[in-house]
């Protein structure tokens, strides 16, 4: 009967709610983990940036091969960072859209775009569209460490030096807040020498306090530091995306839980109405039967 169907549906929605609620809590725990990882990485990244901008300001203009733009770029690599799993709202879709938009723009400029994917969702999308991809790193965002960033860094630097790639971009989600994660496209190669002209750097230079002894020379140090800076940027992208993923999933699951509540309310109302209707019908039957007997 209809009454029984409604009852079953209410139970079903209740169970779904339990799952979404659990997922919400799991994500919030994971988000805390991801955020503390970002926190712990920050001192390293900040110091690194400081050192690099200081070095770059000292190095003569001829600089390093990684800094030189290619006169006629033909191939560009896009590192697309997505999550491995879904159920996080528009998170992955937004990232993939951003990457594809970049690929289209590059195509319009006559560049061939190739994808390097971290995370299953992005890889699946790229594969479905038949866009070439270089190398996929399967376990992706579920468990990554600095080593993974190093590997990606080494791969793109190797390909860049071998002129298999002329430009490299990173598409990732910047973690702004719980409610906001923005897909960001970051140009990695050729590297732009970071300006030392941020407030602190400029102040330091004016009073000439940054007069270091370099060991080995500035150029050699720069050659050491640049590839690692790339790794730092990639790692930061991975960390941010991971935090964003959990935040996005939290929000999505929160919405789902609320929707479950709403559906339960509607269904309960329907259930009561249906029950009331059937009682009324039965009453009419009984009254009618009693009347007939008289």
């Amino acid at each position, binding site marked *: 009967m209809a009454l029984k169907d409604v009852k079953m549906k209410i139970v079903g929605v209740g169970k779904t709610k339990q799952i979404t609620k659990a997922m919400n809590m799991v994500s919030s725990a994971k988000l805390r983990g991801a955020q503390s990882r970002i926190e712990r990485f920050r001192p390293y990244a900040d110091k690194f940036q400081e050192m690099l901008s200081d070095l770059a300001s000292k190095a003569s203009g001829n600089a390093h091969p990684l800094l030189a733009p290619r006169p006629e770029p033909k191939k560009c690599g896009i590192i697309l960072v997505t999550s491995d799993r879904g159920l996080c709202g528009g998170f992955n879709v937004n990232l993939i859209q951003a990457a594809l938009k970049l690929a289209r723009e590059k195509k319009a400029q006559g560049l061939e775009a190739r994808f390097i994917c971290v995370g299953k969702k992005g890889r699946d999308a790229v594969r479905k569209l038949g866009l070439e991809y270089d190398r996929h790193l399967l376990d992706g965002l579920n468990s990554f460490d600095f080593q993974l960033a190093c590997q990606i860094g080494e791969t793109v630097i190797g390909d860049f030096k071998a002129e298999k790639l002329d430009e490299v971009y990173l598409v990732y989600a910047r973690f702004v807040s719980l409610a906001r994660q923005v897909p960001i496209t970051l140009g990695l190669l050729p590297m732009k020498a970071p300006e030392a002209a941020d407030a602190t750097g400029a102040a330091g230079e004016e009073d000439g306090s940054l007069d*270091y002894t370099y060991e080995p020379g500035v150029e050699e140090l720069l050659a050491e530091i640049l590839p690692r800076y790339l790794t730092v940027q990639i790692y930061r992208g991975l960390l941010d995306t991971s935090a964003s993923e959990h935040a996005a999933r939290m929000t999505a699951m929160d919405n789902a839980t609320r929707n479950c509540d709403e559906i339960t309310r509607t269904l309960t109302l329907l259930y009561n109405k249906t029950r009331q209707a059937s009682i009324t019908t039965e009453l009419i039957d009984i009254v009618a039967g009693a009347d007939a007997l008289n």
Partner: protein
Amino acid sequence: MEKALQLDIVTPDKVVFSDQVQYVGARGVEGEFGVLPGHFQLLAALDIGCLRYTNLEGDKKCAFVGGGFAEVLDDKVTILAESSELAEDIDQARAMQARERAEKRLEHRTEEIDADRAQAALHRAITRIGVYSEIH
């Protein structure tokens, strides 16, 4: 109190060490160097090796550093390392395993195996074990 150095060892995953010390000795790519309070400003690339320091109580300690950079500025020594552990935190069993793995890789060389990488891994493992055995 005597002048002291502030030593910070920072890796991507955490701040490994942050405290006042008397002396820091590190292994740069061009050789070992020592830093005492009042050292000139220096920026150096570090090799895989052992970082020695003497804490304020005068105890000599060491830590493993897996390559990176060192900055000396106003009696502050900052070590930026891709990996680093204090000697007492080194997991010897893991380092042993890593050494075996790397040795095996180097023995059975194939196309896919990056020899440089295995060599570096071996070097790191051996250094780790060396640092570990120094205090045990």
